[in-house]
């Protein structure tokens, strides 16, 4: 469903991505990990065209992301994305946050959008928070709303960019639970995260990045069993000891 083929990207002279290639099949869950500055977030932002790249190709559902003339808004509407800092719109209620793109992009009417929003809020356990504004919610609640907001577009795949990194420890689980449920239901997911427990539990494959390169791309068992590269071993030993 998602194919990344030898993608390279530079910020000025600095190369952030170096011939990255991977693929995500329909229904597959792929976790991307690696030290900070390794290009994970940049790579995931390239997939829905939020970041441009200079070389290589990315296709989503057969549509080339980087090609001239690609209808990016239409493509993005079919891929859900969840961010580290939730990025709910502060001036709208929770309900309006979830309805905005449904009405403006998918042209659903307000009643239809509201119904779908409430359905999803129920699913993430926040139906009673619908009339509140984001600033009145905890971080974990905000992130669950953000997931509901992405799901409201009925996406064919979901991208997660460090969804739990900005959360207090006791709120991480409520977000991971929602994500695990989603994975088990068969959603195609690409997840940048350091939550190795989550990776072990639901990931089909783990991609390890360092210095803009994909150093490992292995089945989850193999990755945790015996990662081949020295750098990946070091990274794992560092984050798994605590």
């Amino acid at each position, binding site marked *: 469903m998602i194919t990344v083929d030898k993608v390279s990207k530079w910020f000025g002279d600095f190369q952030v991505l170096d011939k990255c290639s991977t693929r995500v099949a329909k229904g597959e869950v792929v976790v991307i990990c690696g030290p900070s500055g390794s290009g994970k977030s940049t790579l995931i*932002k390239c997939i*829905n065209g*939020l970041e441009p790249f200079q070389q290589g190709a990315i296709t989503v559902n057969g549509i080339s992301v980087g090609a001239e003339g690609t209808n*990016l*808004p*239409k493509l*993005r*509407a*079919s*891929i*859900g*994305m969840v*961010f*580290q*800092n939730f*990025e*709910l*719109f*502060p*001036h709208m209620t929770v309900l309006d946050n979830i309805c*905005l*793109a449904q009405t*403006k*992009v*998918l042209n659903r009417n307000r009643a239809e959008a509201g119904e779908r929003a409430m359905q999803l809020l129920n699913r993430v356990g926040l139906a009673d928070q619908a009339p*509140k*504004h*984001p*600033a*009145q*919610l905890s971080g974990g609640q905000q992130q669950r709303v*953000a997931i509901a*907001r*992405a799901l409201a*577009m009925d996406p064919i795949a979901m991208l997660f960019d460090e969804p739990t990194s900005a959360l207090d420890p006791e709120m991480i689980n409520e977000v991971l639970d929602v994500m695990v449920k989603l994975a088990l239901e068969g959603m195609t997911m690409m997840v940048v995260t350091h939550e190795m427990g989550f990776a072990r539990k639901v990931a089909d494959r783990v991609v390890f990045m360092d210095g803009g390169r994909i150093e490992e791309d292995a089945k989850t068992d193999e990755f945790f069993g015996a990662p081949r590269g020295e750098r990946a071993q070091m990274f794992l030993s560092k984050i798994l000891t605590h």
Partner: protein
Amino acid sequence: MAMKYNWDWSVVLCRAPEGVATGTGGSAAQLPGGTSAFAGGAAQTFDTGAHCAQPYFDWIVSGLGWTVVVSVFAWVIAFSVGSVIGVSRTLDQPWVRRGATTYVELFRNVPLLVQMFLWFFVVPELLPKETGYFLKRQLPLPEYWTAIVCLGFYHASRTAEQVRAGIEAIPRGQTYAALAMGLTPAQVYRYVLLPVSYRIIIPPLTSDFMGIFKNSSVALTIGVLELTAQSRQIAEYTFNIFEVFTVTTVLYILITLIVSTIMRFVEKRLHIPGTIALGGN
């Protein structure tokens, strides 16, 4: 006070007698020379004392009216043009940004008084002949329109900077999130960036709105009979400078107080629940 001065607050209350046109609306009839204060004329037909040669109170009311009209229209221009320019300065297209930056630097860096003269005396000469003729001869109240456009475009450069600052204060992630759900860049501005940035910049917008009222006094130099111009005229007729300008000062303070009260109400209405910074508390 050491000097000899005849205090007389009643001059500011002089009304026109029944049936005599006061020329409200700043018509030419009020200009010195139009009606002569010293010839007596209509003023002597009613008994308010020799000092009440003209309906000074009505002049003040008329001046106040024009101050408000010119400022409010100028503000509409400043807000709409300023928003467009401010947004343009945040777009990706380099030529749009450069154009908007040029606008801001041009209108912000030339003194308002000079701009007033440029709009009134120079611009009509630079335009095609018929347009220039229309502006100078056919357009009713040309100095008023000129003042509105000049003040509006001058303050638009300031509003533009505030709008730009407001947009740039919003974390980049908000734009990413809005784009990621399939909104077009125009929709991102319309539904996400502008509603938030306007709330952020309410305080500077407020003081700039007050600034328009205060700067509108510069329009007297091209013949707009707004509050300051009328006050000067009354002072020249009566020599009661202190009384007249005290009233004018109080009126300007009142206007700005009303503006800040309105804006505080707007700020409260737009306040986002649960936040401290976005729209006061």
